[in-house]
C-alpha cells in the first residue's frame, strides 16, 4: 500500500534507492489525518516497550527521519516506514540477546514489496526488555474471555498460518476474517487504554 504522500514523492523520479531527507519531509508534510492516525497507533503500541510517552516516541521517529539517520526506501510507503522506525527505536535499549539490532533488521526487510516485517524472521530483541510472557498474557486478557479470539491469537503468535488456523478453529472464511479483525482491534484498543507497562 502506498499512501498518497509517498505516491507523490515517487512521482519525482529522483535517482537513488531511498528518499532524501527533503523528499521525506515533503512526503510527511502531505500526510492526511488518517496517515497520522496510523502512525499514532503504532507509537501507542510500541511505547509500552520503551516506557515512554507515545508522543515522544513518534517525535523521535520524525526527528531521525528528517535528519537523515533513518532512510526510507522508495518502494516502502512513508507511513509504513515511520511505523518501522517507531518499532525500531522502541527496541533500541536492548542488545543483550545476541540478535541483530532490530533497526538494521527492519531496514533490510523494508526492501520487500510490502515493507512490513517477515513473520519468519528471528526474535525481536525489544521483547527481552520486558517479560514477553506477561505481554502475551496481557494481550489475551484484552479478549475478555472470548475463547475463539484467544485461540486465534495464540495460534497466530505460535506461527500458524491463515488457512491452517482457520481450519483448526473450524471457522468459515468470513467468520475467520471477522474474528481476526476483532483480535487486531482489541489489541489496538488495549494498547490505547493501557499505554504504560508497570
Amino acid at each position, binding site marked *: 500500500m502506498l499512501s498518497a504522500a509517498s505516491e507523490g514523492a515517487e512521482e519525482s523520479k529522483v535517482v537513488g534507492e531511498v528518499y532524501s531527507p527533503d523528499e521525506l519531509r515533503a512526503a510527511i508534510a502531505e500526510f492526511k489525518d488518517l496517515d497520522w492516525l496510523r502512525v499514532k497507533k503504532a507509537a501507542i503500541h510500541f511505547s509500552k516497550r520503551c516506557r515512554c510517552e507515545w508522543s515522544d516516541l513518534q517525535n523521535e521517529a520524525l526527528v531521525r527521519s528528517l535528519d537523515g539517520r533513518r532512510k526510507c526506501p522508495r518502494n516502502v510507503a512513508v507511513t509504513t516506514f515511520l511505523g518501522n522506525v517507531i518499532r525500531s527505536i522502541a527496541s533500541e535499549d536492548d542488545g543483550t540477546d545476541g540478535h541483530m539490532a532490530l533497526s538494521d533488521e527492519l531496514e533490510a526487510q523494508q526492501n520487500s514489496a510490502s515493507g512490513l516485517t517477515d513473520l519468519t524472521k528471528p*526474535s525481536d530483541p525489544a521483547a527481552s526488555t520486558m517479560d514477553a510472557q506477561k505481554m502475551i498474557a496481557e494481550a489475551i486478557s484484552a479478549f475478555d474471555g472470548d475463547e475463539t479470539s484467544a485461540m486465534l491469537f495464540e495460534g497466530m503468535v505460535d506461527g500458524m498460518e491463515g488457512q491452517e488456523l482457520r481450519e483448526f478453529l473450524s471457522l468459515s472464511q468470513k467468520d475467520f476474517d471477522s474474528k481476526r479483525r476483532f483480535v487486531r482491534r482489541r489489541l489496538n484498543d488495549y494498547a490505547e487504554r493501557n499505554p504504560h507497562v508497570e
Partner: protein
Amino acid sequence: MSNNGIKKAKEQVVRMDDFVMDGLFSLSDDEFLQEAMEEGGDLAAVGEAGRKAFERAQLIVGKRRLALVRQEMLLDAKKPAPIPKRVTAQSDMESILSRNREAASKLTMAARNGAGDMQDDSEGILADFVELGAISRDGEEDA
C-alpha cells in the same frame, strides 16, 4: 523460564507486533477510515496533533543543523591560513600590482593607514590576494 521458553515467548511477541503492524499499515484507507469512524475518535484532532509534532521535529532538526554549521565555522576560523610558496606567490603578487599601479598604491596606503612603504605590507597583501583567490593556492607550502 528456560532459554527455549524465553525464546518462544519473544517470538510470540514479534508475531503479535507483526500482526499489529500489518493491520495498521496494510489496511486500505477506506477500511481504516471505517474503523476510525466506528471508534468515534476525533480524526481531525489526530491529524492536527501529528502536523504539530512534524513542525516541532523540523524545528529540532533545523536547530541541530544550525548548531553544527556554527561549530564548523568555529573550527574553520581556528585553522591556520595556508602559506603560499614565497617565490611563486611574490612573483604573482608583483605581476598583479604592476598591472594595477593605481590600485596597488591605494591598497598599500589603506593597509598601512597611509604610512610606510609597500615592502612592509607585502605579507598582508599576499594573504589578501590568496584569500581573494587572485593568487593560486596550488603552490602552497606545508604549514
